[in-house]
């Protein structure tokens, strides 16, 4: 049953990952405002992570149960980090 599943082109995904990695490194040298550069660098990193998860970990072809198991900790980690911002970050 699993043998019939369509599989993504793994090499094409790798090419994208390498292109994005180079783009991320180059973006860090852009003469923009520091916050804009950081935002750009992390958008690139998140895209790379998404590509690995969707195509190499086959998340794109998984059921909702697996998605739920991944989304909960990711949302928690992001939320918990932001909740710590008020004192440490905004007061400095």
């Amino acid at each position, binding site marked *: *049953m*699993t*043998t019939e599943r369509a*599989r993504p082109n*793994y*090499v094409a*995904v*790798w090419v994208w*990952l*390498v292109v994005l*990695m180079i783009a*991320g*490194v180059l973006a*860090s040298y852009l003469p923009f405002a520091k916050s804009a*550069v*950081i935002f750009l*660098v*992390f958008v*690139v*990193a998140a895209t*790379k*992570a998404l590509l*690995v*998860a969707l*195509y*190499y*970990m*086959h998340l794109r072809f*998984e*059921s909702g*149960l*697996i998605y739920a*198991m*991944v989304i*909960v*900790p*990711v949302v*928690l*980690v992001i939320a*918990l*980090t932001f909740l*710590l*911002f008020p004192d*440490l*970050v905004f*007061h*400095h």
Partner: protein
Amino acid sequence: METTAATRAGTDILPGKVGVWWFLASEVMLFGGLIGSFIVSRLGSSGWSGEAAHLSVPVAAINTLVLLTSSMTMVMAFGAVEKGDPRGLRTYLFLTVLLGLTFLGIKAYEYSSEVAAGFTPVTGLFWSFYYTMTGLHALHVLAGIITNLALFVMARRGLRNQHRVELAGLYWHFVDIVWIFLFPLLYLT
């Protein structure tokens, strides 16, 4: 080919796969806690960019490339076992192990040059975070190498169970994703 008792009735998800994803969810919290603390500490204090400037971006970029490539060879090992290609499985597993060892070798070179330049875990908070986060990640890489090496030995003895390769792959790709975030966090900002 479907092995017996590989899936539960009413769902096509392997119990082993649920187990690995469950484990990865806890790993997200483990690394997320560290990364979150790093972000908050960094945004709350100044001068960290100057510390980060002592790290070598080219060396880390090469290491990122090594790990991204190892993810590709790992998923190709799965592709090979899925297609019933034992030679491809052995080759790709071997390449994945080799690339994992290369990553650790480059990381060891980085550590030694940083320590030689006087940057140790007690130099400051940035360096404590740097050695803790990359050290924990390197331990994960080591665990992945051992797992993949065990699979390689099994493959030489005629492993046909594609699920083991898939599950080991899930872990290996997760370790790659952690590095995808550690690289910009520590080196590029």
